[in-house]
């Protein structure tokens, strides 16, 4: 996982497998960016091949925290399977897809 920030817009690059460990790293980084005043949080899934249930739950938590902070969440570069999974579980209803 890595991240970059410019003009209150942060991009976090997720790894290949989002599970408890990597999910919590993403969550921690997102909270840190939001606390620092980030207004738009982009999660880049270009490297992501698999997301497990814990990963889903953590991403839902990120969406919740971002909403409370008035920040926009963008999911980008998802592969077909990830889009299908996120749509099935309703995550895509709460984020902007790029």
């Amino acid at each position: 996982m890595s991240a970059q920030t410019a003009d209150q817009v942060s991009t976090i690059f997720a790894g290949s497998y989002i599970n408890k460990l990597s999910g919590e790293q993403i969550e921690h980084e997102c909270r840190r960016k939001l606390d620092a005043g980030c207004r738009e949080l982009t999660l880049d899934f270009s490297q992501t091949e698999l997301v497990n249930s814990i990963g889903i739950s953590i991403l839902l938590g990120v969406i919740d925290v971002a909403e409370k902070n008035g920040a926009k969440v963008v999911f980008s570069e998802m592969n077909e399977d990830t889009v299908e999974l996120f749509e099935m579980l309703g995550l895509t209803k709460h984020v902007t897809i790029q």
Partner: protein
Amino acid sequence: MNEPDNKLIHAFGALAELGHEITNRNNFQETIRTSLHLLSGALGIRRGAIARYSRFAHELNMLAVRALGDEFPLTLGLTTEDERQFLAVGLNPIEVAQARVLPFFQVYDASFENKRLELLVPLVVREEIVGAIFLGEKATGETYTSYDKDIVCAMGQHIGVAIAQRNLMAEIERRSEENRQLFDEMRSTYHDTVKAFATAIDCKDKYTEGHSVRVGKFTEIIATELGWGPDETEGAAVAGYLHDVGKLTVERKIINAPYRINAKESAELNKHPAVGYEILQPIHHPYTDVPLAAKYHHERLDGRGYPDGLYDREIPYIAKIVNLADSFDAMTTDRPYKSRRPAIDVVEDLHRNSGRQFAPEIVTAFLSGMFKELNGDDRGRRFRRLLGRDYMEAEGLAEKIKFTLNELAPTTPMTYVAAAGIGDQPIL
């Protein structure tokens, strides 16, 4: 693959991970937190909580909470009616609209409404309430289907079992602690009884007041110096306290005779080790050697002791320790027919009789303890308290003990054996 198939595969994956999480011996709190993540992630649930039920306090205490905010109550009190309803429903999800009839729900309804809770799942394992799961809205915005509820039930069963196991462990730990306390109390009672016996024995002999208690303490010192563990040392002390219990049956006039007793009286007095054994043997002591210490504490390595004239290796080790402690106390206290002997004389006596009456390593252990106190290595003042400061600070005593220890240390002790043709000759 159609959507229901995908959902099923995803939910099965979560269920498998939940089983793995619960069967692993992870931190319980972390297991519950992960379980909530898995349940939420399996169905895309935005918020929720898992609570554990305290049947003593009649409360649900939150173990894991997700996205319900700081104001969500962490403890929820249940009424008897709530408990009855929970047990009647069993491990089945209750929709919030139905749950509103429950008394506890009415108390917290505002909090639940505000957090958009949709399902309440009582966790009932073996007809006992162990907790509850609270679930908020799904990210899809759709209501829970019967399929969703089946998944929640399946995962709830795993979580309920995890909480029940934890409760069981806590109960075992609590009972174990209770047993430990009970054991400590019994042990304390046992020791108080032993000391009371020692005092009773000593009361019979007006000239040797405190003898049994002192022998107990000297025995304890020797065991400590020999490097025995706490339980064994405690056992040794008990053996010392009770070694003369047989004297309770000896006539007072013999014990308190202000002269050297005659042969008949001596024979009567010499029965006390065997009588002591008879008294102590039927009692279940935590330390097995206590009766043997009473029976053989007048035996000598060279076979000239009583009651059985045993030789070195035939004498139980604890009896050898008590023998030294008993003899030392006899030499260092005033008797009706003779005064206590000077400390240096006593050390010489121990040295002279080492290998004859006393086991050399026991003499070494005893004198080492004394020497450590005299040269300041041991600040416990154990000997000073038992013998008096003046007695312990006799001129030249430390040097005498040091010399004796050097004399005793490198030698191999003589060993006496009882065998035909050898008699009581020492085997070198």
